[in-house]
């Protein structure tokens, strides 16, 4: 049981915030389950809805990691805009609303070993390099908007040029999408 093991760990280590760990574990479990559903479900619309749960879970994890601004952006951009786009995409391509066979490739089983090997590798590397690192105690409450102010500072000073670059990318993408998708 993830939650219990984390609890036991946190009791032995006074620095670790118990509630945070439990929250993380629960959300993570939900996210992994939802993500598995995204890639395995036979219904395209369901997949999109499972994706909403994953994205929402990611936003929740951001809050746990004291990144409120990113979390809010995540909700607005992903769950608000990107998901709507996906649903439009599904509808406009006239996917079946119900279950659908043949959503997978013929050789889809190749993906399993690739993913497992990749995960084993990543897990090994992560534990090898960061196994003992603890995260800073994240302030979960209070009027902590310093990080947001900090982000604003960085984006508009230090990272101004990339920021402009990204705005142009977005503009180009918007125009490109219109050009590609319009009927003429």
């Amino acid at each position, binding site marked *: 049981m993830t939650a219990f093991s984390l609890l036991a760990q946190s009791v032995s280590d006074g620095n670790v915030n118990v509630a945070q760990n439990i929250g993380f574990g629960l959300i993570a479990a939900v996210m992994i389950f939802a993500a598995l559903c995204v890639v395995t479900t036979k219904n395209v619309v369901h997949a999109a809805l499972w994706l909403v749960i994953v994205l929402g879970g990611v936003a929740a994890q951001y809050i746990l990691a004291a990144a409120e601004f990113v979390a809010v952006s995540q909700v607005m951009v992903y769950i608000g805009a990107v998901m709507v786009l996906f649903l439009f995409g599904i509808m406009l391509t006239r996917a079946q609303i119900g279950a659908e066979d043949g959503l997978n*490739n013929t*050789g*889809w089983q*190749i*993906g399993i070993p*690739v993913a497992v*090997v*990749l995960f084993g*590798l990543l897990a*090994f*590397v992560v534990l*090898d390099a960061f196994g003992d690192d603890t995260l800073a105690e994240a302030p979960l409450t209070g009027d902590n908007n310093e990080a947001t102010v900090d982000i604003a500072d960085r984006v508009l000073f230090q990272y101004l040029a990339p920021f402009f670059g990204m705005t142009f990318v977005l503009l180009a993408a918007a125009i490109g999408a219109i050009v590609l998708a319009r009927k003429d």
Partner: protein
Amino acid sequence: MLAAEVSNEVQGALELTSGFFLENLWLAALIPAIGFALILFFGKKMPNGGSEFGLASMAASLVVTSGAAWQWLARVDSGKEKGEEAFGLLQTFGRSVPRAAEGGEVKPYIEPVITEWVWWQNSGLEFGIGSFADGLSVLLLWLVAFISLLVQIFSLDYVRGDRRYTQFFAALTLFSSGMLVMVMAGNMVQLILGWEIMGLCSFMLIGHWWEDKYNSHSALKAFFTVRVGDIGLLVGTAVIYFASADWIAENLPGQSGFDITAIQAWALSGDSSASGAAIIVGASALFIACIGKSGQFPLHTWLPDAMAGPTPVSSLLHSSTMVVAGVFLVSRIYPVFWEAFNIANGGLSFIAVIGAITIVAAALLAFVQDDIKKVLAYSTVSQLGYMMLGLGTGAWLPAVFHVFTHAFFKCCLFLCAGSISHSGSHHSFDMKKDMGGLRKHMPVTFGAWIVSSLALTGMIPFAGFWSKDEIVDNVGNNGYTFLMWVGLFGALLTAMYMTRATYLTFFGEPRGAAAGIHHDDDHGFATEFHETILHAEDIDRELVTAGAPAKSLSAAAAHSEDHHDDDGHDDHHGDHGDHGPHESGKLITVPIVILAFLALTSGFANPTPLVHPFGVAGESVERIKTYVEPRAVPVDIEVVGGVSHADDHGDDHGDDHSEEALAPASVDQLSLVGNGVLAADAEGEDGKKEGCGFTTPAEGSVCFFPAVSHAVPTYGKIALALIIVLVGYALAGAFCVAYYGRKDERLVGLTERNAVARGGYLFLKNKYYLDILYERFIVRFVAHPLSKAAYWVNQNVLDGTVNKVGETSKNTGTWIYNNIDQKVVDGAVNGSGTVASETGHGLQSTQSGKVNQYGALIFGAAAVGAIVLVILNVN
């Protein structure tokens, strides 16, 4: 020896003049680069298709380089003045008097004017970009700017109406910029940059009419052949960098093994010889790059094929400027080659041998060419051989001088060829089929051609005489008697093939197009295509006369087949038949005349025989020697920004020296100290040579150029050279009249009757079978299997991890069967082709076109690669 005694006195700092143009020489390269960008972006919208940007930028570049040349002359003169002053000062203070000053002229080392910015940095290493002005670079910069401008003017008319007119000028301008960047490079990295830009432009321009398969093949051939050599450039630069790193870090802090001056100083410091084989490997690698770029034997095969490009391109890139890049590289870091190949002690160098082989091999090939441009191309190869021969035997000055004069007369010859094909032979370059008797129709072109041919063959007093014979003379003087005879034999061949070309083009009975006969289908690829261009032009003209806008009918030029269906074609036939051969327009003849004038006069830039034995002028007429050749004088290392490790050398210098010279050695801060000076010829009392390049410079001083010796021409040698040239004219003239004119029966058909003659003819006609060697054997047996094998390993190993283990083993079996069993045992020529197609079929299934499968491969490969990395790092 006229030369003064050598002095090993170390030169201190001198306050030399400089000037705006010398310090901002980079403008000369930047302006064409901007011109290129303007042509690219706005060229199509301009009334003249962007050529105005090209012309304007080249003109501006010419102004900058001319200004720089003028200021360089002033700088050298000021060096002489200050040197004399310094010398006087020393005498006043009663210090040691350099022997050189007794009677000899004061010739101090003239520091180059370096303007450099940091281009990029990498782990403490800085790469500069900027300009490096010394005699050699200023001379060549001016030459490139001048010839580029003339060629662009010529092109205005020559490529008018071409479908890629704008692109043509863009590439031409970019080429000039690249060449200028290379010539003004103060470090090897910038030099490589310019070198590669030129390679790219060469590719674009040779393949200008790429619709024709022959042209695109030629462009690829040129690109890849040169690329083979370019590997040497990278390797050589790296080797020299690492070999010199320690010495430079210790003695010239702040400079690196990429800086030209640092390399020069290192090569002559004695450390380079101590470094063992490194300098030999580095110099050999660099020279391989020069073999590729300058079309030396055996990588010269690309140059004649490069004539597939438009004539202005052949004229600018493949005769007068780009191909001398290799010669320039050798002369720029000459000390490296000097040390590596032991030129000082008369070592038989790689450079000299290659140069000598090239002279004769290419000149022989020039005999059997029917294409006028190919004759000139082989002639270029042969002349580049002379330059390399000179450099390889210590004749630096005549080699550089020959670069200078050769540019004018060879450019002129090519432009004449262009003019002939443009107006005289109906866009054909075939001398046997479409030329003859053109001297009456094209008097200006004929005159320029004759002048340039005389210059090329080395007839007095045309330019080639002063430079080429100087090379030959110096080669002999430096102790390479056999190579001198090779050079003289080359001169004989040169005179002969030029006589043949001249006869076939301008004398005899008009043939083919020159006689006004229009024939469509019986000449080669290039001709065919030129014709289609011409058709488009003529239709343009008709449109203009009809009052319609002069719109390029480039589409008509695209395919000759299409064009033959064109209605206007038949009208055009008659039209063209009427006007026949005629003289070209002003835009074509004016550059030709200017160049012909220079072909006549440019030799007087350094007419050594006038000084001796003719004795009609003083040494001051040897302007190239005075202003271009770097002085072989040891310079105090602190003056050039180095750190002196000697404790006792301060005694030799004034007290003010140690104060002043510690300051960074910028041009303005140099103070008048030290002493100086000597003439370049170095011979000690005991007859053993000393000075820079022969003996290690004194502690605390560096040399930048070896003390090359200069031959003194004699009447005998001059007469010999001229007689050989005249014999060449006479022999070839007699042969031409007999063979082409009177069709002498003893000669005509000789190749059919006589096996030896036929064998020789075929051997030459097939260009020594080098192309066949390269394409049929080296490429097919080495490159193809290698690349196939590499591809096979790449794909099958990856694939095998996913799902194709079984098929892999089968393919391996097939591969081994085909290679070991079939090819080795049977020696089958076609074996490799079969292998290629077998493996291709075997691999086809991996190229499924399915995105997911590609994704699986990518991620799988990334995972496997990462696992390998992790394992390597963990253990």
